[in-house]
């Protein structure tokens, strides 16, 4: 298999699916000649033309709403929201419209759209280029929410999302774009939406994460392994619909669980996972479920000391692992 970065996986997925099916098209701000602010769509405009790789007006609700309308008329849109921080103006089109079209029409109409957005902090992005927004959308039945952490899954999940008959949001951690390298599978490979991946087996602690935090948890797990603490790291990959089985099976083995996310603590997706483990895996547990998350402040500051203090990091995660193991 070829090697590549996570963003190359994203780009290849779009190129291959556009090649394979001429209903697939890409729209968003600066996705055309520039190839997107992160270059995720680089080369697509030259290859597929302006109708299929469209620079939209600067209007997020229109990006999603037009994607929905085009899907209702036979196209398969891949909408890029330039930063997850700017998805909020489209919240209504995503939540009231995309998520509910199938349900409210009793299955008569479907909404096969994909929305991609770079998310996450630790890149000196300040309040409005660092946000994690997965909790808002994972709350909404009718949406699928996926967050790849490897190039292979970025490619495989995006291809699966494009072929999915329902709306899928794909959040890509911008720090992972070029940092994370790995194998890039061939054009036939799809990563199914739904199943989580056990990235490292262990028997003392179950550690659940997604996106960049998977890599930080693996780093922390390596550190504490030298101290005799064996951690099983689960990469959720799909937040909704959630793979509860993989989480609960692991907790049954380890009896200790933690969730790590970058989004702030309160009402974060970790709360849902903690509730599921408490509700459905109570008998397995030897310790309370631990959450490591961003602090409950409105957003991530730009200055380095405060940004560092916001982001969970391998050191903090390793300490939480030690504390949990010692409980």
């Amino acid at each position, binding site marked *: 298999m070829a090697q590549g970065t996570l963003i190359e996986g994203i780009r290849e997925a779009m190129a291959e699916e556009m090649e394979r099916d001429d209903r697939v*098209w890409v729209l968003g701000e600066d996705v055309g000649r520039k190839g997107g602010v992160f270059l995720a769509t680089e080369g697509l405009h030259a290859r597929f033309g302006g*109708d*299929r790789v469209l620079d*939209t*007006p600067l*209007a997020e*609700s*229109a990006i*999603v*709403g*037009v*994607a*929905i*309308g*085009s*899907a*209702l*008329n*036979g*196209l398969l*849109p891949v909408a890029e929201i330039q930063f997850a921080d700017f998805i909020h*103006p489209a919240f*209504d*089109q995503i939540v*009231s*419209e995309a998520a*509910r*079209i*199938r*349900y*409210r*029409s*009793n*299955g*008569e*109409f*479907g909404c096969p759209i994909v929305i991609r957005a770079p998310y996450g902090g630790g890149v000196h992005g300040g309040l409005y280029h660092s946000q994690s927004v997965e909790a808002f959308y994972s709350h909404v*039945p*009718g949406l*699928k929410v996926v967050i790849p952490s490897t190039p292979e899954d970025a490619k495989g999940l995006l291809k699966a999302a494009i072929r999915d*008959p*329902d709306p899928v949001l794909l959040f890509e951690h911008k720090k992972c774009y070029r940092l994370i390298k790995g194998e890039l599978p061939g054009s036939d490979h799809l990563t199914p939406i739904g199943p989580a991946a056990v990235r490292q087996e262990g028997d003392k602690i179950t550690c659940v994460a997604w996106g960049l935090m998977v890599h930080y948890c693996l780093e922390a797990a390596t550190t504490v392994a030298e101290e005799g603490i064996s951690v099983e790291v689960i990469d959720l990959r799909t937040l909704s619909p959630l793979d509860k089985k993989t989480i609960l099976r692991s907790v049954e083995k380890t009896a200790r669980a933690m969730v790590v996310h970058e989004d702030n603590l309160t009402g974060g997706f970790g709360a849902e996972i903690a509730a599921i483990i408490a509700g459905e895996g109570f008998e397995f547990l030897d310790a309370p479920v631990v959450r490591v998350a961003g602090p409950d402040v409105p957003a991530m500051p730009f200055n380095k000391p405060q940004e560092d203090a916001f982001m969970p990091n391998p050191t903090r995660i390793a300490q939480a692992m030690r504390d949990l193991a010692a409980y």
Partner: protein
Amino acid sequence: MSDERDGRTATSPAPSHVQLGLGREQLLTMYRQMVLARAIDRRMWVLNRQGKAPFVISGQGHEAAQVGAAHALEPGKDWLCPYYRDLAFCLALGMTPLDFLLSVYARAADPNSGGRQMPSHFGLKRARIITTSSVVATQVVHAAGLAYASKVRGLGEVAVACLGEGSTSEGDWHEALNFAGVHQLPMICIVQDNDYAISVPHRLQMSVESVASRAVGYGMPGLPVDGGDLLAMYSAMRQAVERARSGEGPTLIDAKVARFTSHSSDDDQRRYRPQEELEAMLRKDPIERFRIYLQRHSLLSDPEDESIQREATAQVDEAVQQAEAAPSPDVADLARHVFAEEG
């Protein structure tokens, strides 16, 4: 019909049916559709008082604008992103009284939503009427997307979005028209301006008399139309459809209409509209105006009119009976259609 034009906006007099090339059969079909829509609408209020229809929202007073517009379209080919007052529009595109009554009773067989949505949240796949939410103006953006697909796929289909004048204050309306203008899409936006958004009058929604004057900012023509005049509406809409089909781009139509009823069954417009205003409005019934036009041109006799009225009542009676007898949705289906079902 120009002599009875609504005084609010200067519009050009409507061409006659002869100038428009409309034959008697089609004129009578238009008339029948309006009469049927009115009969259904009135019955809904009766059902509401009987405790059988928990929620009613009406299109009374909007019928001529809707039926006139619908007849300029090709049903089954062109798309409608409707709003909740579009009963007459939907009937003219092929929705049956039973299709609609099933939604009033929230029955399982309701093709709009399987009884999931409030009535008048239209959606009918076979007639290319797109499912709508309650969130005003969201559907205009969908029309832009439908039209974009039509354009790039070379389908020749026109996408129409309807909404009220108050709803044009929403950002989605602007985003949709701007997108349609930039790409010169085969899209038509019909604003049904009934002067009120629930209780808030036109002048508190916009600083212009006609929303059509905003069209210039989107690079498209804006046509103010007396929406109480079926032929005026048909004529404007035909121009817009021709433009759209020949690749000349979108059109914004401002149809001045009247809201005969309160906003919905949960509202009482006597609380915020003066009595004289209500009385004056009710004297300008668009269906009545069209009937007079037909009679003046000897296209409709009194006995024919009576039989059309009777027929409509009979159709409504039958649909009400069938809908009332139809089963409610099964509780076990609550969780269905969240996502596509396998197979």
